């Protein structure tokens, strides 16, 4: 079986490299027609990345002997490896391009997004990480179903998990297609196909080990690129942060406002609160992030990896703060990047990319463009693995097969699920071309904060929690969260064309998170069933296991 897998991998790798070169070449012709030239550095960097990651996938595929090897790297990752991969998940194209662009246009207000993540991670470290590692083995749903009735909880949590993965995936695939079209000049369809095929290969063959190494390489490249851009900005000002700020304030249409606040939230504390809650608590509910706690050998390593991740992200967000301000005055030096109406070509997402060309010429521009491509690939690979684990482990193995599936069979089903999710992702990416999908990313984080976060916290810390409370509270919380998003300006105004939205905020978390907490607690409180008694009685055992660990499989080395 493994020989077949490896030969399939070689064939697919050849096809992909050929496709990438052909797509880049077609992009070159298309671009030439628009008066742009092919960026050899971008194509060369990207092809190097693809070849390296495919070699790693080939190496990782040979090391998969069990479902834990495949889905959580056998619990054998080092804390620094896992930390880098976790940080990589958050140093996405949305973070790098999105927040840099938002600071360029909105000033310091935009940094509330980055600060939210920096608050969220220490909370995860102190509240969730170690207990999760001690209680679960493959997905966060293992932890939820630890002391509750397994089947209904797994089905409900799988629905939530798959919703998050799919919504996040739509945003990433459409973002990938659009961004890569702009960066490389290749067709949207080619871009989506390449991303979809590569992520399927990484996950289907290399599982968590390959996915982790793709993240580590990409995170290293992004840190390198970000550090260089910051160095280049500071060099132009004689390494004076004060001069960076002075020049940004002189050039920006916001004036001194770019260093202070610009009224992005309209002076509404609730608007900030709902964004802040989504950022800080949404992370706690993302299945592909929570799965990472099971890739290390024990609770101490899980804790250590979160510390590494937080440190790396902290460094990266400080870089972004300087890059965003530096972009304001450096971009102004190149009139070619502004349209006739004075708007920036490519919009906010292109701020960092334009800056890389101005600060480092075509080589740095090409490098950063390729890194952005790699970034999207790495994030969708993590999402795909998480979705496949939910389908194969939580639903097929634990619910439909009563946990009686052999390791080999479960790995086979996970690979099949990976390919299905890959095909689905490509179809969704193509179907949503040109649509405003920003709301789908908001939805994923909002569901994480509004539904998963309350359920996870109550499952870990509240003795009174019952199966009925979790299941009904979870479904109702999900419905409320989705309903409020549909009634938000992101859908009603931006997508459906109404003049005004029924719910005024893009993120519903400020309403939906407390209500989900309340629903789960009230339903559990009034639950007098026999199952409820059993659920409560097993809390002490779970508490002890969450502190000491129990039946934790021995790690395998990676």
């Amino acid at each position: 079986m493994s020989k077949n897998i490896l030969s399939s991998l070689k064939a697919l790798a050849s096809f992909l490299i050929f496709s990438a070169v052909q797509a880049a070449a077609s992009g070159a012709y298309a671009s030439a027609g628009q008066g742009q030239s092919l960026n050899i550095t971008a194509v060369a960097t990207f092809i190097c990345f693809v070849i390296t990651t495919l070699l790693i996938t080939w190496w990782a595929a040979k090391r998969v002997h069990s479902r834990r090897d495949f889905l959580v790297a056998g619990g054998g990752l080092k804390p620094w490896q896992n930390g880098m991969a976790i940080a990589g998940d958050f140093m996405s194209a949305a973070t790098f391009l999105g927040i840099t662009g938002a600071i360029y246009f909105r000033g310091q207000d935009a940094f509330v997004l980055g600060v939210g993540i920096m608050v969220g991670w220490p909370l995860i470290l102190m509240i969730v990480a170690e207990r999760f590692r001690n209680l679960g083995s493959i997905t966060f749903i293992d932890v939820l179903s630890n002391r509750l009735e397994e089947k209904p909880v797994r089905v409900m949590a799988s629905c939530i998990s798959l919703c998050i993965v799919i919504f996040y995936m739509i945003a990433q695939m459409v973002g990938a297609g659009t961004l890569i079209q702009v960066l490389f000049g290749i067709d949207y369809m080619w871009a989506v196909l390449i991303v979809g095929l590569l992520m399927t290969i990484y996950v289907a063959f290399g599982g968590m080990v390959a996915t982790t190494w793709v993240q580590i390489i990409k995170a290293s490249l992004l840190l390198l690129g970000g550090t260089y851009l910051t160095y280049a900005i500071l060099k132009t000002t004689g390494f004076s942060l004060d001069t960076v700020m002075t020049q940004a304030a002189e050039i920006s249409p916001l004036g001194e406002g770019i260093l202070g606040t610009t009224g992005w939230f309209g002076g509404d504390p609730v608007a900030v609160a709902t964004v802040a809650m989504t950022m800080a608590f949404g992370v706690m509910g993302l299945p592909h992030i929570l799965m990472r706690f099971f890739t290390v050998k024990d609770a101490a390593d899980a804790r250590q990896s979160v510390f590494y991740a937080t440190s790396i992200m902290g460094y990266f967000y400080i870089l972004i703060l300087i890059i965003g301000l530096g972009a304001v005055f450096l971009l102004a030096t190149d009139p070619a990047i502004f349209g006739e109406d004075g708007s920036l070509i490519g919009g906010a997402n292109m701020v960092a990319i334009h800056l890389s060309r101005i600060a480092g010429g075509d080589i740095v521009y090409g490098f950063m463009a390729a890194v952005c491509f790699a970034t999207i690939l790495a994030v969708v690979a993590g999402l795909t693995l998480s979705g496949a684990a939910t389908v194969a482990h939580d639903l097929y193995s634990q619910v439909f097969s009563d946990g009686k599936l052999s390791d080999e069979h479960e790995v086979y089903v996970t690979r099949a699920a990976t390919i299905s999710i890959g095909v689905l992702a490509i179809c969704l990416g193509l179907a949503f071309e040109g649509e405003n999908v920003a709301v789908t990313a908001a939805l994923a984080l909002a569901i994480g904060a509004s539904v998963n976060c309350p359920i996870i916290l109550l499952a870990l810390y509240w003795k009174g929690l019952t199966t009925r409370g979790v299941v009904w509270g979870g479904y109702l919380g999900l419905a409320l969260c989705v309903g409020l998003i549909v009634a938000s300006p992101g859908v009603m105004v931006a997508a459906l064309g109404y003049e005004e939205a029924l719910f005024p905020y893009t993120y519903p978390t400020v309403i939906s998170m407390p209500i989900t907490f309340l629903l789960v607690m009230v339903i559990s409180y009034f639950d007098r069933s026999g199952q409820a008694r059993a659920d409560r009685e097993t809390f002490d055992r779970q508490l002890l296991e969450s502190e000491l660990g129990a039946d934790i499989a021995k790690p395998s080395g990676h």
Partner: protein
Amino acid sequence: MELGLSDREKVQMRAMKPLIGKRVKLSVSLSLFLIVAYAAYGFLLTGDGAYAGTKVWGQMTLVFLVSVIMVILGVAVSGLYTWWCRHHLDPHVENIKQGGRDE
């Protein structure tokens, strides 16, 4: 999952309780500290723009400084908690896991 605790687990639980209490106290204090700081940061963003834009050092504004401090706080709190657990929790937990009573 089995109901209730065995005799050995009851002994372990008794030994763990003070440690759980200490950890909860530390993690709740640090979490609340971060949440309150984040809330203050949010109010700074939505409050008086002139106050947020107050120069505190050269061109550096209050809101810029607080942004950087918030990022550093996130890292510092993580580091502090990790250090505390390694030095004040892990050795005792290991001792309890080995079966001995933590004294």
